[in-house]
């Protein structure tokens, strides 16, 4: 019998919440608030603010039973090293391959899920039966579909928060209070592209809407792009673990992929379907992975691209970001 409070925290979208839930544990996707000034390690130069913030969150999360970190990003790999040395919380480093085209990479991802399972069992979880896993997957799938369906009726911030609440609390009556007065159509349709957003930076979404834009595609890691593909029901009942791997590893496109061509294919489809007229590109200072995509994105698309780089922890960021968004929307209106 698992303790109800055994919460497993993580932040990477390649960690399937339903896998953790199927083990009888509570998966909690942590979105850091902002960088804590009393950060554990003295260095800030060269350290991604999101990484710094995540470490702070993990160190403060007293109720957690374990933490899962992935190898998707080099600095997160080092986070594991820091946690192992400085934190009593059991930690697991999940090797998510950067390559994706080979069968070997896909198999590696599945093997890592199985290894994660052993870790979860050591923490008091139970090896899930096929039925339990299928049910959990269906629950999450339904919740994701409901959020996706509500997109046009929610502000960008509400949408992002709905996705965040799903990650934090699991499936439930998430959207009962969402305004359903009709699809939102006002504003210049824009996409926001980039890595994860800290809670404080969700205000970027509000700023865009305040100044006359409308986010029609949240292609950040904490947004829609970080949600796995819908499950195929037939494959789900045949082999749920395989389907889980396919939807997550195969379905989530990211700048860390090598090659990351699928990210651009996905973006192209979405930008056309959603009729976006501009791209707001967000990155954290010292996030090399996304920074390197900026130049390529600008060459790849005909749409105007606004670069917003934030350090995640000061008021100056806010003023600067506001000015850029305002200027961007002036050019588009």
């Amino acid at each position, binding site marked *: 019998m698992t303790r109800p409070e055994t919460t497993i925290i993580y932040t990477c979208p390649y960690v399937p919440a339903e896998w953790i839930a199927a083990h009888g544990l509570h998966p909690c996707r942590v979105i850091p608030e902002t960088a804590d000034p009393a950060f554990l390690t003295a260095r800030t130069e060269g350290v991604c603010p999101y990484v710094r913030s995540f470490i702070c969150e993990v160190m403060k999360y007293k109720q957690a039973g374990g933490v899962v970190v992935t190898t998707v990003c*080099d600095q997160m790999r080092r986070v594991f090293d820091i946690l192992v040395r400085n934190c009593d919380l059991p930690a697991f480093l999940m090797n998510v391959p950067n390559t994706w085209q080979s069968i070997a990479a896909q198999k*590696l991802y599945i093997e890592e899920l199985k290894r994660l399972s052993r870790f979860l069992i050591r923490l008091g979880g139970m090896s899930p039966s096929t039925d339990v896993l299928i049910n959990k997957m269906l629950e999450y799938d339904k919740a994701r579909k409901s959020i996706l369906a509500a997109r046009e009726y929610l502000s960008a911030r509400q949408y992002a928060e709905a996705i965040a609440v799903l990650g934090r609390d699991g499936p439930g009556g998430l959207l009962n209070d969402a305004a359903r007065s009709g699809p939102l159509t006002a504003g210049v349709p824009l996409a926001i592209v980039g890595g994860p957003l800290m809670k404080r930076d969700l205000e970027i979404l509000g700023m865009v809407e305040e100044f006359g834009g409308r986010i029609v595609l949240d292609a950040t890691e904490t947004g829609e792009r970080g949600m796995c593909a819908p499950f195929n029901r037939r494959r789900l009942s045949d082999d749920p673990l395989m389907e889980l791997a396919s939807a997550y590893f195969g379905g989530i496109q990211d700048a860390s992929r*090598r090659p990351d061509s699928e990210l651009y294919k996905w973006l192209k489809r979405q930008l056309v379907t959603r009729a976006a007229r501009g791209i707001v590109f967000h990155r954290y200072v010292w996030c090399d992975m996304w920074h390197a995509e900026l130049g390529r994105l600008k060459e790849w698309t005909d749409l105007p691209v606004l670069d917003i780089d934030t350090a995640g922890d000061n008021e100056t960021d806010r003023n600067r970001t506001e000015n850029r968004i305002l200027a961007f929307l002036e050019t588009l209106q």
Partner: protein
Amino acid sequence: MIETPERITLEEWDQQYKLLQKAGIYQPDYGGPLSRHVEDGDQRLLKLQYDNSAAALRLWNFLLTEEDRLHKARADGKKIIGTMKDLGTVPVMAYSFDNVVAFYPDGAWWIPCVMELSAGLLEIADSLGIDESFCPVRAMLGAFVTGAHFPVPDMLICSVGATCDDFSAIAQRLNGLGHPILWWEIPHRRRAETGEAMVNLTGGFSAPECQVEFVKSELDRIKNALEELTGEQLNEEKLCAGIKEANQVRRYLAELRYLAFTAELCPIPALEMLVAEMLAIHFCSDRNETIAVLKDLLDEVKARVRTGKGILDADAVRIFWVNPVADLQVMNLLEDCGGRICGTEYLFTHALDIIPENLPPIEALAQMALADPMAGSSADRAQRICTDIRRFGAETVLISRIPGASHCALEGEIISQIIQETFDIPVLEIEVPPVTDSMRPTVCTRLEALVETVKARPRVKQRKWRKK
């Protein structure tokens, strides 16, 4: 052996060269006075100090003529493979083919230093959106765009996964410019869990058998791709022969390192040692010549040690150096400030270890690839460094941060902590950009302060040199 080993300037080398010529010292076809490279734009050579031996001259000429060899290889119809990031594994395989030359385009990171930014490579990287917040390896992008340094390879092979983000991003940017890349995955090396078969790797590391199997499958994929490109089959016999040759390089280098780091008087400068180590990872585009160059250098060092001759004072502080430097001049500064190199970890120690010859060759290479210090935890890396500190008798550790390198920001601190927990020795971190001229006083202050700190402590007696 040179009568009085010492470090000399480029101008002094011109004089030295005349003496060597008169004495009839053997010069390979790529030999000649060092100063001729300055005419090619390698301005930095004017500011460096060099070892004054014929062996060192051969080493430098070998390094600085790599581009010529690559162009000749292209003209001769050989296939040129650009191997990226893995630092030591794929070239062993590549050189086992008959008509293949492999090199590291990453090596372009020294071009901005050597040409003192005149080549414009960093500006090209800037224009591609890869600015100074990235590792100086970004110069590689400029080299590919201009085509002015190395010929564009017939195939690019790049390892990703447990590598560093900014290199991965730079390689992806290169891919985005239209250069196809064969990507292969190196998983994050971990310890075997209960129930998993464990494999002992070089460097004191271990990994579960399933990870070795995975890397084997990746290397098989590379082998197949190389076979398809060259039209040549690489059987076990050929690969074993290639491994044997690579091991010859590694043996010479291992002996050279041991002598250089443990001799009572430092027999060879840090800069030449850095260059020698770098040769090991890709044989500077000529494996046979690498063996000859290292043998020459080793003979020189052995002679110096035997006769008790060195290039620095006996009380030079023994410094273990972590991470390679983007500016070669810093290796001179280390010695100018009273230090000597006594151990190195330039992120490719796995390329210096002997490849097992009693295993199937792909398995052996897979094990070596997994032993990459970057592939595992910072703690693992620190443990290996600690082992080598003990082995070489270092008195202090200097961690040089590579500006923009994503792994350095957090890793340096962990390594530093572990070293200080293990030994009671000072550990210092400094940042070394591609051209440090304007920061020379800052860098010198740090190095001198480190030397003073060590000298003010009771010092461990210098180990006597003995055969391993």
